[in-house]
């Protein structure tokens, strides 16, 4: 009998997780961040419930500072699949005009994303949320459960996490508590790219190299995605062939110079490259163990 390939096993496991989570919750939602991991999650969710549609809406916790190409891609995907999309923008951030230039990356991320996520979950009363985090992303994630319990304040307490055995997940919660479920827990970045390649999953064009206007700041290439970006005196955006290895708010996401304009070229480049994925994210740089702190505060 032929053995399943590693991607077949990972896919089957993710589907099992999706089905289990939906069956054991009252009101599930899938967090959709428009990145490649979200694309893979959406693809797996579609497979898990086929021929039904995924029985939950998507939630995009928006910061208003994503790349324009991400908004366009998001709206196309949702229209194609006929899914419900909820977009939430923290009203306090809208009122105060929170942005990474005036308020710094830490405050920007905390208020739009961490606080915005909590508010959105509370507003709709979701008791379970799917997220695209992977255990290989960062050391503190290696111990994250597939089903991760959060307190009514959305805090993650490493001491209160439940043991997970076999394929048996315990999604029971006390009032106010909620569950974060990570169907991609056991996928690596390479698995994700291989699967995108094999299944021909659509991803945001920003992952592919193209001439884009960028400025270089502290060694990081920032794309000037719209006219909200204040240029420093004498700074002139430069058209360079760049692409993004990870997507977030455009002022906080570093581009890399690249000629990789096809999926196979991206994978080739990634395998030959020398720095890890999250390095492109300004927010992880603060200090060693900073992801763990963010998780305890409720960052996904």
């Amino acid at each position, binding site marked *: 009998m032929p*053995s399943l390939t590693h991607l077949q096993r990972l896919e089957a496991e993710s589907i*099992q997780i999706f*089905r289990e989570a939906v069956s054991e919750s009252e009101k599930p939602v899938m967090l959709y961040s428009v990145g490649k991991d979200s694309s893979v999650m959406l693809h797996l969710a579609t497979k898990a419930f086929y021929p039904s549609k995924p029985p939950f809406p998507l939630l995009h916790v928006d910061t208003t500072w994503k790349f324009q190409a991400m908004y366009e891609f998001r709206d196309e995907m949702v229209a194609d699949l006929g899914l419900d999309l909820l977009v939430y923008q923290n009203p306090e951030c809208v009122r105060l005009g929170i942005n990474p230039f005036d308020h710094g990356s830490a405050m920007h991320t905390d208020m739009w994303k961490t606080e915005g996520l909590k508010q959105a979950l509370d507003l709709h009363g979701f008791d379970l949320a799917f997220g695209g985090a992977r255990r290989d992303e960062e050391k503190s994630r290696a111990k994250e459960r597939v089903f991760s319990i959060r307190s009514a304040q959305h805090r993650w307490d490493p001491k209160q996490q439940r043991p997970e055995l076999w394929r048996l997940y315990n999604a029971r919660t006390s009032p106010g508590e909620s569950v974060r479920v990570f169907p991609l*827990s056991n996928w690596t970045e390479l698995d994700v790219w291989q699967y995108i390649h094999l299944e021909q999953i659509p991803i945001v064009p920003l992952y592919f190299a193209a001439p884009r206007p960028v400025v270089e700041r502290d060694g990081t290439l920032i794309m000037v995605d719209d006219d909200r970006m204040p240029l420093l005196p004498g700074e002139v955006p430069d058209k360079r062939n760049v692409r993004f290895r990870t997507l977030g708010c455009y002022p906080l996401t570093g581009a890399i110079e690249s000629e990789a304009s096809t999926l196979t070229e991206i994978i080739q480049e990634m395998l030959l490259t020398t720095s890890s994925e999250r390095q492109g994210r300004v927010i992880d740089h603060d200090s060693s163990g900073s992801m763990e702190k963010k998780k305890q505060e409720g960052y996904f």
Partner: protein
Amino acid sequence: MAHISNDLLATDIDEYLKVHEHKTMLRFITCGSVDDGKSTLIGRMLYDSKLVFEDHLAALESDSKKVGTQGGELDFALLVDGLAAEREQGITIDVAYRFFSTERRKFIVADTPGHEQYTRNMVTGASTAELAVILIDARKGVLTQTRRHSFLVSLLGIRHVVLAVNKLDLVDYSQEVFDSVEADYRAFAKEIGLEDIVCIPMSALRGDNITEPSENTPWYTGPTLISHLESVEIADVVHAGPLRLPVQWVNRPDLDFRGFSGQIVGGVVHPGDRVRILPSGRESVVARVVTFDGDLDEAVAGQSVTLTLTDEVDVSRGDVIAAATDPPGVADQFEAHVVWMGEQEMLPGRPYLLKIGARTVGATLAQPKYKVNVNTLEHTAAKTLELNEIGVCNINLDRAVPFDAYRENRDMGGFILIDRFTNGTVAAGLLHFALRRADNVHWQAIEVDKEARSAIKGQRPALVWFTGLSGAGKSTIANIVERKLHEQGRHTYLLDGDNVRHGLNKDLGFTDADRVENIRRVAEVAKLMVDGGLIVLASFISPFRAERRMARELLGEGEFVEVFVDSSLAVAESRDRKGLYAKARRGELVHFTGIDSPYEDPEDPEIHLDASGAVSAEDAADQVIAYLRSAGIIPG
């Protein structure tokens, strides 16, 4: 990845992807203590398989100088130590999952601590592993912890073991030392039924026999660790076994389609196969094996699919679709190994939830027949199981479940126990066999006491005492609370003036002395009911602190819940439904609380309800329910 030197990658990415997209996967667990060099071994495997990025490598170099234990040389252990607190303590305190891959396989490593206290973590990591790497320090040989790890590996049904005899550099790569450790271990492993064992001499620190055969061990002709992990055949008994598919989700997009979605955990399925649905026992035939990528002619263990059947048989979540010729058993009483994982000890007779496959049922455990000392493997008598203890118990379920013995199928015989109050996962268990009814006459007799009476009701007994002015709304709220509790299946009784004054206390009036006696009798009756395991609701003006304190003191710690239904006299008087305030004002009623008899506010009630009218009685009742839940009196 930093220093990959794969020609194929650079020259023919399409061919490279073809190879890598068709790799197989192996999940394994590493067992050993920090001292055995376990983290170093895992770090070394990640490093040697070229999965360490240069930015990680830079961090590793600087960390090695700062906190490393290798005198400034690369300390691979730092690659895998996770949470900040653990890094400071220098120990791993939970299960961490690591990933690496080679040309032939992707690996998922469950990294679990070897410390004595953490049986829980090792069992968790072992539950999904197909192979175990057990580390031994060559200088120390087979230790107590080696036996413990091996026992757990065997218990959890892992059939393939690698004995990594590590730190061989510290015994001058002595073949004699290696041979003697191997002989000791094989003798022990045989006793506990481990058969497929490969022993490899190595030094994780120096990289001997990890990926490349070492020049330091010319006498060793076996495989390196990685080449063994890449090639070991996981002879999958699950594939060969009969069809098992626990139904996770009934798939009904429209009236024309009714499918049953789940992951195959045993055997193979084809359209046309005759199947039996358990526990009902009804039979049907598979019509289609549906997936997003099209219908399949065959699906095998491990795949997640959706089956449709040729008849309209009733199938719901938790049922198992199985080979009609070789179906699993169905039973409600079992003997099982139980690994206790909760902070609070196991309570025999107390109802827990048991999840097996996609089915969750109520379960009670008898007193353990014995517990197993994981160090000596001795069986000792036990009344309960505490955190990290393993025992053999009889389990009684409130509904029958389909099952196979754990050793035949992990997914059909492995279960978790969930605490009804905290919702935590408190134990893992392995079903061995069903008890025949005749065996049950010796079902554990437990002493029938308050604990037993309340356990059978799935609640903790309590006296919830509503105090406040006449007209404050005590009885209204208490009635709603009782209704809500009843709807949740809780066992309750409501004591109030209406049902007590007309019978038990009809000889009493409203003088201060009679009020005191009234409350004393009510409290004594309530105490008996609490002893019977009930949640008792008492609704009495009970104006005096001393009497309320007396009632509190009659009961056990945490059993008395004082609810102050707080309304001003004016508001209560304005509600005067029975016209009592009017009578009292006219002097027709004496000793009326609030008018000519005092009401002493509770000083520190468990619950303080706003009864001024701002909060509805329904919401006030919800506050009481929420408190009962948070206090663990009723399940969450």
